[in-house]
């Protein structure tokens, strides 16, 4: 009797202890400086607590000191991977407040650069996702192709990453003569690499085994958490502002909204989120092709706007479909040339908050992949 009791005590002392691991801020796959406090039971994740703010650069405070055009460079630095898309909702808000009509050519040009940048963003997203899974080669293939996109954007705007290209009522640089050919060229390259990566990575059995059925996010939870972009669409919800609330001239183009269909695994898992991005690249290519066809090559690239931009007293919430989701700007104007308050609603910030919900119960290696499939940019999370 006493012998048995002793053994029981020993067994109870053998209980595995949970270990708290600090992932980040310096960790190769936190996509920047995110810190996750992970509690693991062996290899199983039991709890995740994200700690943000390692890149909190006081964006909103800066905006209170800046005039409206001066804010645009700071907005570039929010989501630095898709700077063109970032500038758009902000500029759109100002144009709506000022009641400026943007020239036709500018609208097309904006669509083209934004979609090019969307492709570049998704390339990085898929590439780093592959890197998290341990595949290094697709990462460099995508970065090689991204370079061609960057060259086009550089010729237009002058900068490689943070373009500061959009202006109120126009854009900063006109198209150059070989613009259309280069765009077509790039689209061909993007499609070729996509086909290659499909075989090399996406349909690789190891990759499928790693990602399919991992980190399942159901549409209800996604909506309640405010997710948007590929994260929401990967859950099978066809929510895209370009279609639901067509801003600019998106209603003129014919494109599909890719959603997670669950060809492999379950709708809403990492593989489907990633696949949505792959399909979105193709859709962006289609949009660019149509825009290039319809775009007038002649004409001015800026509308007539006052030299000193002063917004009327009021407030506006403007949103646009960013590669990562819905980017919103809430601008409160007090009638001067500086905003009273500017709040940015970053898609990554909101999408990241779903991490604790969907990563519990998976393995530690899966947590890295779930984080990668959300596609966050810390510049936008922390602002």
């Amino acid at each position: 009797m006493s012998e048995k009791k002793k053994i029981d005590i020993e067994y109870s002392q053998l209980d595995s202890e949970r270990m708290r691991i600090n992932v980040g801020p310096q960790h190769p796959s936190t996509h920047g400086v995110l810190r996750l406090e992970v509690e693991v039971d062996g290899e199983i994740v039991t709890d995740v607590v994200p700690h943000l703010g390692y890149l909190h650069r006081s964006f909103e405070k800066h905006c209170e000191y800046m005039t409206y055009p001066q804010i645009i460079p700071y907005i570039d630095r929010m989501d630095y991977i898709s700077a063109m898309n970032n500038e758009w909702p902000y500029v759109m808000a100002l144009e709506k407040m000022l009641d400026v009509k943007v020239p036709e050519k500018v609208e097309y040009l904006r669509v083209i650069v934004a979609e090019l940048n969307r492709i570049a963003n998704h390339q990085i997203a898929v590439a780093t996702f592959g890197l998290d899974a341990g595949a290094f080669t697709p990462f460099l293939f995508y970065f090689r192709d991204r370079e061609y996109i960057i060259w086009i954007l550089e010729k237009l705007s002058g900068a490689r990453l943070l373009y500061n290209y959009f202006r109120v009522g126009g854009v900063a640089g006109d198209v150059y003569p070989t613009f259309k050919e280069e765009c077509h060229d790039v689209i061909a390259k993007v499609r070729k690499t996509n086909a290659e990566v499909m075989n090399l990575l996406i349909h690789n059995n190891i990759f499928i085994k790693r990602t399919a059925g991992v980190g399942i996010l159901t549409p209800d939870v996604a909506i309640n958490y405010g997710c948007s972009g590929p994260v929401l669409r990967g859950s099978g919800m066809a929510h895209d502002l370009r279609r639901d609330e067509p801003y600019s001239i998106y209603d003129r183009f014919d494109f599909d909204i890719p959603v997670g269909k669950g060809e492999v695994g379950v709708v809403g898992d990492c593989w489907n989120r990633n696949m949505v991005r792959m399909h979105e690249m193709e859709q962006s290519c289609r949009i660019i092709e149509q825009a290039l066809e319809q775009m007038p090559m002649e004409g001015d690239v800026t509308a007539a706007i006052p030299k000193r931009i002063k917004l009327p007293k009021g407030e506006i919430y403007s949103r646009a479909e960013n590669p990562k989701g819905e980017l919103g700007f809430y601008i409160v104007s007090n009638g001067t040339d500086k905003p009273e308050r500017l709040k940015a609603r970053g898609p990554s910030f909101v999408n990241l908050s779903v991490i604790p919900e969907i990563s519990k119960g998976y393995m530690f290696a899966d947590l890295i992949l779930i984080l990668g499939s959300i596609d966050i940019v810390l510049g936008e999370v922390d602002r």
Partner: protein
Amino acid sequence: MQSTNFIWDLFGVNLLTVVAVVALPLGFVLIYALVAILAELKISAWIQERLGPMRTGPYGILQPVAEVIKLLQKEDITPDASSKLLYNLAPFIIFSGAYAAFAVIPFSSAFMPANINVGLFYVFAIGSISAMGIVMGGWASSNKYSLMGAMRSVSQLISYEIPAAMAVLSIVVLSSSMNMQEISHAQTGYFWDWYLFGGPGSWTKVFIIPFTITLAIAYFIASLAETNRVPFDIPEGESELVAGFHTEYGGIKFAMFYFAEYANMFVVSAIFTTIFLGGWNSPFGEFLQGPGWGVMWFILKSFSIVFVQIWVRWTLPRFRVDQLMYLGWKVLLPVSFICFFAISLFVMFK
């Protein structure tokens, strides 16, 4: 006078041999590791449409040399929280494990550092020492990532030893010897006499060719896992565990891990070459056959296996721990058992 004679008697004329046996593999390991490091850098670069190191010597061929010179100069850190003895011992154990395995590798029909009868057994026994080193290093670093890497590594090594051993045992059954030199001798002839294609024998061997090829693949996969290469590099999986068990190691101690990894790659390739690819035999009968050429053939064959290892590394994503275990226990082990059984039956009724 008496004492010198005693020493002379002890080592005797074998002193030169002893030196050759010790120094040649060591020199080979060091030079080979440099070449392999460069090969990895260059091949990975070419796969990714890059050039790799270009500015260290012509086409960057001196890059590994520069790395060694640099690593020798680095400060030797022993973290405060680590348990010092084990921390400092681990790299040496791993390196000596990898180096000791070279003792039984038949480089040519004339040269083999130690021709022992249980060569294959010895390799497997020595190869397991590196697992001990990894656990020591991972635990002694008192870093959580290192610990997790070490734990993963042990489970991985243990589970993949068995399929690898089964594959090797099948060849042992076929050749009825554990002596690597004898196994090599048995495969003399043309390339269809290799054990990859059933070994020497009459036409009846076609029945076991599928099994030997399967075994070769199984052994190759298991050897990847034993050397912690992608897709089985979870003990040091960069995106998960920062650098795995060697997270806290730097400088010369890290260089030992670094060298041991590449040395291990060569060891498993050499075993693969010996038991499946005919060792130092020329693939075309008497063409360039001989002790001197044997070294060339052996190194050529082993390097192609090392090349495939590098090539696989830069192609495939990484497994997860449980999938790794699944592959080891539920796929490789049954498959290798079936093949072992089939080959044993064949040998029985031949």
